């Protein structure tokens, strides 16, 4: 029975954790390039030089002494996101949507005093949220106003789009939709929904919630499939360009769609998770193998790679 399951997974072209680590991450992602994607400030700078739009960076706090200075740096901007530069999985992020006399109002309507926000920033600096537990820096960037396209299927928060890219070719993608259980965060671990997106058209297909296939959003009740993702071509192009940008051969590209600015690169991930296979009910391995067999001219430009991927991965 177990052997049968093995065979079925293999036939479906599912990529396992061991295979991902040994055959893709270790082979394609040189360790020395990791800092580029692990630090959001570096990623942002890099993206700028490649004309890839990212959320506007207001300021960076890297020393404890500078913590109180950020208010000045924001100069009256009352909507911003505080993030750890090396955070993972969305931890340590605070979204501020308004400032009042009493303090800051968060996305979920909570009021926090400036004092508490300072504390949060010192927490970030001490490395609580950082990947390796090392000292970190805090960044303040523009608050995203999500495009209304996913409003019917998300509970608060900002849905984000993950595209896995192999050797510059977009392989598979999904949109992560916040739920009540995930506390408005677009994080599958916490209970967000992952909906697969067809590579060709950019419409959502099936969805997964805590490793169960679902048809509707658990909070809003609306169907999650059949939604046309706007700016699809552009997002695929950004994803494809991330290869030239970082030199990493196997990468997860996270994007958000801003109401005003369109698709923005949020962050890059050198160890993208495997749950995307569940969201698409398709195996990654099978597609990765096809990319390895693709003719050399496919890899010439980002445009060619996107074109090839849209045709190959219907």
């Amino acid at each position, binding site marked *: 029975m*177990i052997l049968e*399951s*093995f065979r*079925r*997974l*293999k*036939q*479906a072209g*599912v990529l*396992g*954790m*061991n*295979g991902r680590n*040994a*055959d893709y991450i270790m*082979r394609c992602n040189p360790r020395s390039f990791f800092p580029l994607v692990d630090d959001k400030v570096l990623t942002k700078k890099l993206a700028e030089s490649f004309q890839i739009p990212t959320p506007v960076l207001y300021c960076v706090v890297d020393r404890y002494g500078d913590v109180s200075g950020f208010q000045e740096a924001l100069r009256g901007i009352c909507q911003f996101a505080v993030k750890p530069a090396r955070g993972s*999985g969305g*931890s340590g992020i605070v979204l501020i949507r308004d400032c009042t006399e009493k303090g800051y109002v968060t996305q979920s309507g909570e009021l926090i005093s400036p004092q508490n926000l300072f*504390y949060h920033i*010192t*927490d970030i600096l*001490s*490395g*609580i949220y950082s990947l390796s*537990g090392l000292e970190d820096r805090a960044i303040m960037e523009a608050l995203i106003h999500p495009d209304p396209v996913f409003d019917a299927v998300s509970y608060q928060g900002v849905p984000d789009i993950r595209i896995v890219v192999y050797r510059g070719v977009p392989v598979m993608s999904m949109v992560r939709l916040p739920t009540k259980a995930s506390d408005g965060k677009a994080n599958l*671990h*916490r209970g967000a929904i992952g909906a697969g997106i067809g590579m060709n058209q950019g419409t959502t297909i099936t969805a*997964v919630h805590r*490793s*169960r*296939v679902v048809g509707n959003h658990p909070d809003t009740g609306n169907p999650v499939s059949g939604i046309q993702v706007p700016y699809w071509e552009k997002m695929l192009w950004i994803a494809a360009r991330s290869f030239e940008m970082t030199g990493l051969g196997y990468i997860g590209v996270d994007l958000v769609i801003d109401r005003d600015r369109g698709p923005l690169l949020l962050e890059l991930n050198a160890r993208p998770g*495997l749950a995307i*296979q*569940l969201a698409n*009910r*398709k*195996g990654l391995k099978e597609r990765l193998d096809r990319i390895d067999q693709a003719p050399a001219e496919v890899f010439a430009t980002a445009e060619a790679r996107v074109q090839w991927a849209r045709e190959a991965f219907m």
Partner: protein
Amino acid sequence: MKRPALWLALFLFLLTAALLFYRIVWLGYPVFPTAPGKTWQLTINTRVMPETGEARVLLGLPAENPGRMVVEETISSGALNLSLTREGPNRIGIWSGPVEPEGQEIAYRTTILIRPRRAPPERPPGIGPYPDRFTREEIALAERLAGRWKGLPPSDLIRAIAATAGGEWKNPPPEMKDLAGWRALARRDGREKSLLLLLWAANLPARLVEGLPLSESIQNQLLTWIESWNGRSWEIILPEKGKVISDSEAFLPLSVGGVPALRVYAGELTEIRWTLSRQVVSRWSLHGERIRRSGRFLDQWSLFQLPPEFQRTFRILLLVPIGTLIIGFLRNMIGFPTFGVFMPVLMALAFRSTGLAYGLGIFAGILLAGYAVRRGLDKLRLLLVPRMSVILTLVIACFTFLALAGNKLGLREFMAVGLLPFVILTMVIERFFVLVEEAGIREGLRTAAGSGAVSIIAYGIISWDPLQLTFFVYPELLAAVAAVQILLGRYTGYRLSELFRFRAVGGSS
């Protein structure tokens, strides 16, 4: 990528195989080093009470001969000085020094391997001159009495002389005058000494021996017997009944040649006990002894050459790689979630002193306490390093409390708590907290349970004696372990848990 790893693994396997082959075929190592052999464990316990001055206790200890091997010894002397010396054929332990008024415990424990049929390629002993305490008349009397059995083969002669201890004089009966003289001598010197004199007079090598009969027993007194050489082996005469026993392996001598096996100066012994118990131990110890004496290169560089207290460490250390191999297997092939790679191994090592149930209980208890405190600390918003220090302090405080509580309750397991890996525990608390915060309590408990299960499995492996011994005798097996580790590192197939995780994907095709 896959090729070089395979070649390296193959090379390591071949290396192991070659070394094993060499050791077994050329050096005669046991194929199954753990096959059992019969041994006896001798324990001597006593307490010295002080008199004036420095006390000295001389105890006869088992000596080695071809039929009897002292496999390992542990000696505790408390505050006393200990030295081991040889006096002729005897091994003597000397405990000396000032004794506190409440006395001082002395304990000696050894494992003795009896190897039947390996007995004496011993050189026949010579007969020395008579001791000075016998007068010329007494010697003449003894020679006259012994002379009547001239011509008897030695072993019959020994039996005839032994029988006189019971007053039985085989024919021809001796003259009344000689008999009376002999009885007077025997009364004065005791049965043993008079028998010895008679044996010497009959030209038989003989000696007085103190020791123990080899049977499971606790004695507070040693047995004295006489050994006499029949030309091939020692025969044992029990002077009380005049009985002769040919099987010299039935007794364990502690002192030969009339030297008392127990001498005490400036002190008094209370409750001395010699305890003998039968034990089945593996044949490796026998080989350990042989290896220690061998001049071969691999024998010289064997772990058996290490002093015993370090040997024990290495017996465990050599199995740690297997522990990590198992963890790799459970993580990469089964998909157990664990806190890091080393935490379960270090836990398993600690379980050796705390015991499994206590160890796991303490681990869970401290983790819960740490988690509660960590939750509280979160509100204080402490910086990383000081916060970890606080948790570490908490862990150490828990250890201290448990040790003290263990002392009060008489639970050794609690007192051994200090051996738990406190740094790892601290980090586990932090990681557990972060995991619970980020992925929920379910995920946190799942990982904690996974770690616990893996450490139980690792514990089972590193405390499995036969495996310990096998690796100790053949440390080259480490190369084979490394080979398997390399192969595991190249396993890029699915984890068992992924069959479940991705069932929705596999099912659709």
